[in-house]
């Protein structure tokens, strides 16, 4: 295997959603910069939106919502643990991002007057903007990358960040998953946009790659940020999503909701007021799933034929288009059967919950020269539009940061150590198969970390993850492709340890199912109305600490504070609600 040394001003790791935007905006800010977009797959079809997206979940569009209202909504949806400056910065920029995507050719639903056709799905405000033709979004991004003359390398697996004598980031190390060539990429600033940690828990199907997230998003970014010394925020606020059982893709209540679809129990009755994904919503979902009224379904069978055709058109061509095939195989027709749902495996993702690498409103992490954006950056409930927006911030701020800076000298000790670590599995003659180690690790993540969380179980989990570290030291990779999987198992193990330690640190319950601790069942604002930050300290140990929530810049209305806590529909409300739904459907 050869070693290649490359040199760029700004390196963006991950070419899914936030990454392409970051690269384009860095170049736009300073066209003289050398910008590299480094991708594990191929930027044409990589990341969470490889097959497009069916809508924006958090569009803050004048006339429909205000940045203040959105900030208030997300603060409440995330149980108050929010640095509002970061959410507010997103909200103020949200419309500008939409207008830019619109200019780039991304199609959003508009009404007869040419205005954006915003729908209401959240508890309080209206932020959902459908993209019925959103399947081409990656093509639009690729065109912009070419136009901006961004350098792209595909099939490079980044494994570690280089840091200089001052602890600032100074480059990226990785390898080619086809040739096993080693890459040393010098950089004055690095933007991590590697997606969620989506291969943490094992899906209930037992199939390793049957994850909710694109399985390339294995948590590499979380592990790289951690080892570079960056703080990670609120990791115990796991991502757990309501999904189509076995298929494990989103049921898309957001898409069907405005058309009259809803989440129902085994009796076909509504049990939650609002389908917007929050910890509390997942708690109610989980309770219903396990109850005598379970399991849970997406109910569409009451809708008119043309409405169903519209839903099929959107859901079977966007985001997870193989869904139609899955339904056919199970003989599920939206007209006659409800779609059986289940909950996802656990993961980290700030796109949907709040677990990510800490960033401020400039997308800066706690490490000099290191930025993060997208699902892996801790701006709560940020979704795709938040990824684009924080990619934008990261690109522009990284470009400003590198102005006038020189490259740090190469630290050969770091490089040699990483090269030895990365290639060890390829050099072993015998050893464990990466897929088996991954299966066991992720099965144990389920056994010991899946909420409801129990202290003693998580402690046992930590012991098991230590043992897996020993197993990892005897993995054999037969070829470069397996070497990629071996590198990912390491990142997944790091994430598993982070998930356990972060969860043990916060001795209260918060965020509904995401952090329900059976032995600390109550929310404890007196001690835990704070962020938790997890990082690697100077001795190399994984430590957690409390960090105060920044004073709110948008005050909360007393009447709204409880709104996300009272999602369950009670028996006496049901008859009235059924009537309202029938009316809504008639008008659809």
């Amino acid at each position: 295997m050869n070693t290649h040394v490359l040199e760029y001003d700004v390196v963006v790791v991950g070419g899914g959603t936030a990454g392409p935007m970051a690269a384009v905006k860095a170049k736009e800010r300073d066209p003289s910069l050398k910008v590299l977009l480094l991708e594990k797959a191929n930027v044409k079809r990589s990341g969470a939106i490889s097959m497009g997206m069916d809508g924006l979940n958090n569009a803050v569009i004048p006339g429909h919502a205000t940045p203040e209202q959105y900030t208030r909504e997300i603060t409440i949806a995330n149980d108050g643990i929010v640095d509002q400056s970061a959410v507010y910065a997103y909200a103020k920029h949200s419309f500008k991002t939409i207008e830019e995507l619109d200019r780039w050719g991304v199609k959003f639903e508009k009404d007869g007057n040419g205005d954006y056709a915003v729908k209401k799905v959240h508890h309080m405000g209206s932020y959902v903007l459908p993209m019925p033709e959103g399947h081409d979004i990656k093509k639009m991004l690729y065109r912009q990358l070419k136009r901006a003359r961004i350098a792209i390398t595909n099939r490079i697996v980044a494994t570690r960040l280089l840091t200089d004598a001052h602890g600032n980031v100074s480059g990226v190390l990785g390898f080619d998953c086809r040739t096993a060539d080693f890459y040393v990429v010098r950089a004055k600033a690095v933007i991590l946009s590697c997606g969620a940690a989506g291969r943490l828990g094992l899906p209930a199907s037992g199939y390793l790659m049957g994850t909710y997230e694109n399985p390339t998003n294995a948590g590499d970014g979380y592990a790289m940020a951690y080892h570079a010394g960056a703080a990670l925020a609120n990791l115990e606020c796991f991502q757990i999503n309501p999904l189509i059982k076995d298929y494990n893709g989103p049921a898309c209540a957001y898409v069907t909701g405005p058309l009259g679809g809803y989440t129902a129990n085994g009796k076909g009755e509504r049990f939650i007021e609002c389908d917007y994904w929050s910890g509390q919503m997942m708690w109610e979902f989980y309770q219903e799933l396990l109850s005598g009224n379970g399991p849970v379904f997406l109910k569409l069978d009451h809708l008119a034929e043309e409405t169903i055709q519209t839903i099929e058109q959107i859901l079977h061509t966007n985001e997870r288009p193989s869904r139609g095939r899955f339904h056919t195989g199970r003989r599920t027709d939206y007209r006659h059967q409800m779609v059986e749902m289940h909950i996802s495996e656990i993961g980290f993702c700030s796109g949907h919950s709040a677990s990510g690498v800490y960033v401020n409103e400039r997308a800066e992490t706690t490490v000099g020269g290191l930025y993060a954006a997208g699902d892996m950056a801790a701006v709560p409930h940020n979704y795709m539009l938040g990824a684009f927006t924080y990619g934008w911030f990261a690109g522009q701020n990284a470009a400003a940061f590198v102005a006038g800076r020189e490259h740090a000298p190469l630290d050969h000790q770091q490089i040699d150590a990483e090269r030895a670590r990365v290639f060890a599995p390829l050099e072993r003659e015998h050893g464990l198969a990466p897929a088996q180690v991954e299966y066991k690790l992720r099965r144990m993540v389920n056994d010991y970390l899946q909420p409801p969380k129990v202290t003693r179980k998580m402690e046992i989990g930590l012991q098991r993850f230590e043992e897996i570290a020993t197993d990892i030291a005897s993995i054999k990779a037969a070829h470069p492709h397996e070497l990629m999987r071996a590198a990912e198992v390491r990142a997944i193990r790091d994430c598993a340890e982070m998930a356990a330690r972060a969860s043990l640190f916060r001795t209260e319950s918060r965020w509904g199912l995401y952090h329900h601790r059976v032995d600390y069942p109550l929310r404890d604002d007196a001690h835990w109305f704070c962020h938790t930050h997890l990082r690697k300290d100077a001795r190399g140990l994984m430590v957690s600490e409390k960090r105060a929530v920044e004073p709110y810049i948008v005050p909360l209305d007393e009447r709204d504070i409880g709104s996300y806590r009272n999602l369950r529909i009670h028996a006496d409300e049901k008859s009235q609600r059924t009537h309202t739904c029938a009316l809504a459907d008639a008008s659809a």
Partner: protein
Amino acid sequence: MSYTPHEILHRSTAPVTIDESKCIADKGCTVCVDVCPLDLLAIDVSKGKAYMQFDECWYCMPCEQDCPTGAVKVDIPYLLR
């Protein structure tokens, strides 16, 4: 005493299959190989046709969607079907 390490390979049916009469890999096409996020497809150089090399499919469909001749079919992996 020493024991000889021995590996057993697991058998699986590929969820992504190719209509070889339509596949134009022999003309230099590598679209499906290029777009697979998980890097699972390859070209069999002896036949000049694409095939699924690794059993790690996310049933996401760029390979099928982007194939210029409609030669690729994605089935849901058996375990999820």
